[in-house]
């Protein structure tokens, strides 16, 4: 059932013509609902690529595993930095793991 839009956090990217998640989704799945919030039009067609989750400036999108292949509730939350992502993963028993991954060479190194 990925992705899950957190309605209390999503502002529909008010200044944008299309919300950022709608701009990038490779499956044309994210759109704006009648409530002005992001909406995945077809949960089953998501590839879990997490493009929408990464690009959301409000941290308002969570990626979920389809229940058919994983239990509830587990979370994987990316925090995008300038040249790195900090990932927080919480398993179904509440166990937390963190990962910091460089994802871009910065101009002032090597």
């Amino acid at each position: 059932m990925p992705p899950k839009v957190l309605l209390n956090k999503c502002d529909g990217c008010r200044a944008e013509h299309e919300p950022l998640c709608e701009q990038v989704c490779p499956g044309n799945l994210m759109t704006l609902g009648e409530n002005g919030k992001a909406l995945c039009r077809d949960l089953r067609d998501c590839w879990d690529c997490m493009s929408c989750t990464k690009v959301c400036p409000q941290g308002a999108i969570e990626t979920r595993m389809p229940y058919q292949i994983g239990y509830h509730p587990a979370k994987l939350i990316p925090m995008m930095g300038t040249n790195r992502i900090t990932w927080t993963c919480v398993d179904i028993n509440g166990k937390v793991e963190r990962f910091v991954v460089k994802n871009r060479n910065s101009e002032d190194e090597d």
Partner: protein
Amino acid sequence: MVDSAPENLHKIEEVVLETDILIIGGGNAGCFAAIEAKKINSDLKVTIMEKAHIDRSGCLAGGMDAINTYIPEGKTPEDLVRWSRAQAGGILREDLALRIAELLNTPIEEWESWGLPIKKNEDGSYKFRGQWDIAIQGSEMKPILAEKTREMGVEVINRVVATNFLYDGERIAGAMGFGVRDGKFYVIKAKATIMAAGGAGGIYKPYTNDGNDCHHQLWYCPFDVGTGYALGIRRGAEMTTFEMRWAAVRTKDFNGPIDTISICYKTPMINAKGEKILAERYQEQGGDKAPRYIRASAPMEEVLAGRGPVYVDTRHMTPAQIKEMKTDYLNERPSFVLFLAANAQDISQEPIEVYGSDPYIVGGHTASGYWIDTDWQTTLPGLFACGDVAGGVPNKFVGGCCAEGMLSARGAVQYISKAVEPAGDFSAQIDMEKSRVFAPLVADEDGIAPRLMEEKMQRIMDEYAGGVQQFYRMNEERLDKALRHIKMMKDQLRYLYAKDLHELMLAHEVIDRLDVAEVLIQHLKFRRETRWPGWQTRMDYPEVDPALDGFVNSRVNLETGEVEMYLKPYVQIVAGHRMKPTL
């Protein structure tokens, strides 16, 4: 955003554009083609027609954790071709493979200079994880490439789905399509066209497709639906080796990549009895280094023999290795880490179960695609191909597809320097295509939704054309049944009904997949042997037939509509036994 059906075809706005080089599909091959064309001549107008958004389109949407082919110091392009040839069961276009290998390292080094982090050893050299593959941190590699593409002055038209080529009677003169967001009809005239629209996922039913929320639990990008092949098939282009399907050992249920675990951390594949399958049962074929199709079919054979489930044994991994392995996944398919968390799986205690994937038609991994010449031109003049749609060279992976992007751009630039501009009146063609494209949107509401047709097609292919649920097995009679029903479905396309533009895109995905499926079945029927068990398992012809040592090619006869099949001879350039990875 326009998201409703037009009242009639006359109200659909037409956008007519002209360019020097049109590139269909802005994945990694398409972006590299665009950048290369602008590098050769910055005055050229280069246009990318992209179904999604180039920041996250194609196979690299989620990222990548390795470049699977990079030539290390001390090895030669011939060495790589020998390895690749043996991995593919001795069938590959050596002329093309050599050209790719010669250029292979260049695009990766450029990508690094644009911002892609590549893992290094302490001495600054690239960190190899196997004999040919280097480790990268590629979660943002596609946005980095997209930024470079825009910076080079390439015109990018996002959210336009290509539907057919423009054809001036002798050569391809661009393409037509529709805007999935704006509902407009696009006509893009070009002096040369490069097809880079990716391979075909979703031809077969995935085994996780048992509920509403798992339809796209695929290894391959589910938004790459074979459109690149379909456009060529409909125009009579020569295609090659569709029957060499790509299926691989993947993590069970998640259907994700496995090389990250098995190559980087030397985890053996074991059966339920704890036997190391490849080392103990496939020693003659190379053990852990057996050809890819052997490795793909091995776990399925274990399941059939009653020795499943099958695992990659991660129980010897240290906590530091497990952390690093999960980091690798976060760079490639991040949700696999979520999958483990959603099953509270501690892989130091419980190994990771593996299973075969659904089959894909994907020229970056196997040899399916357009038959091309050494300028990367297809048999349709003015049309070039690169990446997953280009045939003949298996094991290209990301790096090889980038190199091919560059090679196809060089071919296209050379072509437009001497070819005449496309001439003629395209209006009849445009009118016909416009009514074909929008037909599902103006059809009777009492029609068939694209999803129903997609699921029906996937079930036919799975059951009768050797899907994963059938352990990839097939025979002539079942293939005949698959063909009969795929043809019936093509006839039923007139009942397709799309309620909005998104569904119109899904409708064309079904249309394109059916064209690919029909050609695929013909290829599977033609190869009356089993050359690549797993990829192509003919129960009625279980042995290799030396008479079929070559390329199975096809072409739709545009007068009769029939798919014509024939064998092209193998040409060996690189010395050595074709089934051996080294001299």
